[in-house]
């Protein structure tokens, strides 16, 4: 792998302080970076966690009751599960938006901003509803 393009010196202003304090992302940018962050979180650790829960809950009745009544009752587990559920919901909604963008639907600025807000709000609302039902 010769990454020739990586060796070019280009004007890049992506130091961490710049990323955190100087670059102001527009809403579609937030949807995009949150899609990436939620995707990374889903890959690790959340898939592993989901498999652990599936494994334990399907292993035996005791395992199922443990997950339902004890494990999911721990505050830290509840918090983690909420982040998990939100990641899934946001990734899901943002992904559907990107599919529409691929089809050239909603690419004008006004629509793109509106759908970005819809995705962010829908992700949070879905996570709230599912979280309150499941946890």
């Amino acid at each position, binding site marked *: *792998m010769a*990454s*020739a393009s990586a060796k070019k010196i280009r004007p890049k202003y992506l130091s961490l302080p710049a990323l955190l304090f100087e670059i102001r992302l527009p809403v579609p940018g937030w949807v995009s970076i949150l899609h990436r962050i939620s*995707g990374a979180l889903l*890959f690790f650790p959340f898939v592993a966690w989901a*498999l652990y829960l599936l494994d334990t*809950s*399907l292993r035996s009745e005791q395992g199922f009751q443990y997950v339902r009544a004890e494990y999911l009752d721990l505050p830290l587990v509840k918090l983690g599960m909420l982040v998990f559920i939100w990641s899934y919901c946001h990734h899901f909604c943002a992904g559907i938006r990107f599919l529409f963008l691929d089809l050239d639907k909603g690419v004008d600025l006004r629509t793109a901003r509106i759908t970005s807000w819809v995705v962010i709000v829908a992700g949070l609302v879905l996570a709230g509803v599912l979280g309150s*039902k*499941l946890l």
Partner: protein
Amino acid sequence: MKRLVVGAHYGLRDWLAQRVTAAIMAVYSVIVAAIVLKNSPLTYAVWRDLFAQGWMRVATLLFAASLAWHVWVGVRDIIMDYVKPDGLRLTLEIVTLLVIAAYLGWTVQILWR
């Protein structure tokens, strides 16, 4: 013409695979969410019987396979964007593949026990 090799195919295949696998997982998610919410609060009997059915096992395996491919494209995109040293990049890509393989093995183990 000089070709740059920087780790991806730059082809339609991965782009398309990421979208097709996304659609498969979306459909599965909606179906499973509907089943779980309909049977809420979930009991062990319902849960066990759901995963005892052949179609559910196959659908879940299909989901896992879709996830594996989807994750590979997505995580590799992230690695290619942020990790520039070739050695580190290759290492992370191999780790990613190993984790994906482990997930798949674990899934099969859970489904056909």
